């Protein structure tokens, strides 16, 4: 409630009804071919519906990735709880998983018939690359906001290089990067 004043451009919409939250998650669960699910969530929750602001989203994203469990399911739970409390978290997770549950079983049922199709395999491959593009947009939006404080960009870059390029294990990197990130944020806000 006591959130700091944000620029008018990022004014939030009122929190959705439980039904709207459920249906949005159902849609994302069903349509998110090729991965890139955090990108879908960012697009729907932050950009299109303005239910969550960019910084909240990025903070939840960090927590969701460090805790055990599928990152996106954790993220859905954090977003659902933020918007509508415990029932929101439960319905968002349910809506998000029920589509894929039936989709994966249906796909298994027809797998023998379609697995030999090179065209389908090629399409799946292309969809995956486009979904990587969706994930990139999360980085662009996040970096643009974080860039207001260059020391935040340093943390972002260091984490990406360590885990993505050097392939260091995620958890130890996060255990170093989180105190560093929070320490820098604290130093920035000391004079505020």
């Amino acid at each position, binding site marked *: *409630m006591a959130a700091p004043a944000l620029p008018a451009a990022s004014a939030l919409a009122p929190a959705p009804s439980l039904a709207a939250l459920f249906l949005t998650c159902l849609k994302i669960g069903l349509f*998110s071919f090729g991965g890139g699910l955090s990108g879908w969530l960012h697009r729907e929750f932050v950009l299109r519906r303005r239910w969550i602001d960019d910084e909240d989203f990025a903070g939840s*994203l960090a927590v969701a990735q460090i805790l055990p469990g*599928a990152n*996106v399911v954790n993220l859905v739970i954090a977003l659902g709880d933020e918007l509508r409390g415990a029932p929101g978290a439960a319905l968002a997770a349910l809506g998000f998983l029920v589509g894929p549950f039936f989709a*994966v079983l249906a796909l298994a049922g027809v797998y023998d018939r379609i697995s030999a199709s090179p065209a389908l395999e090629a399409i799946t491959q292309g969809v995956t690359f486009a979904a990587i593009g*969706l994930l990139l947009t999360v980085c662009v939006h996040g970096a643009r906001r974080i860039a207001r404080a260059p020391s935040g960009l340093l943390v972002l870059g*260091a984490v990406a290089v360590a885990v993505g390029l050097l392939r260091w294990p995620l958890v130890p990197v996060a255990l170093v990067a989180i105190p560093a*990130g929070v320490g820098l944020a604290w130093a920035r806000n000391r004079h505020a």
Partner: protein
Amino acid sequence: MRDDLLLVLVLVFVPFSLMSIGGGSAIIAGVQHETVAVRGWLSSQEFIEFFAISRAAPGPGTMLATLIGWKVAGWAGAAIATLALFVPSSLLTFAVVRAGRAHRGARWGRILHEGLAPVGIGLVLAGVITLFRLSGGGLLSGGIALLAAAVFLLRPQIPALAVLAAGGLAWMALDRV
């Protein structure tokens, strides 16, 4: 017998739920070992097929557990395995998120949030790099990813599904040239 199997599914997948730190890919090897070598529920070939199916379907890749549950005990098995994999980690996440939110109003709560943001985005960028490498990315695939990102950013009114489909068709058309 059937009830026993459902219970075993719970016992197998609940620990994996809490071990999957950093996401579902962290437990693939463990699940493969437990379900193929230890339990003999499916063959290595079937496991690879299930993995491919869970990647091609929408939703999180860990829906692999749903397929294994299905193979072991039908609809009930699919439901139980899915719940066993997602519920424990979800409850933990809920508890942590709640604990964090209780302090959001406080100044240090906001600083915590501001400090977490670059770590979260940095991990997504690392994920992009890893996915790109694992998929054997080249010039064409990089081009599709960048073009898709540009469309998502500059033309948000175009449905995401249409952009994904265009990426699929572009790859199919150009990969063989």
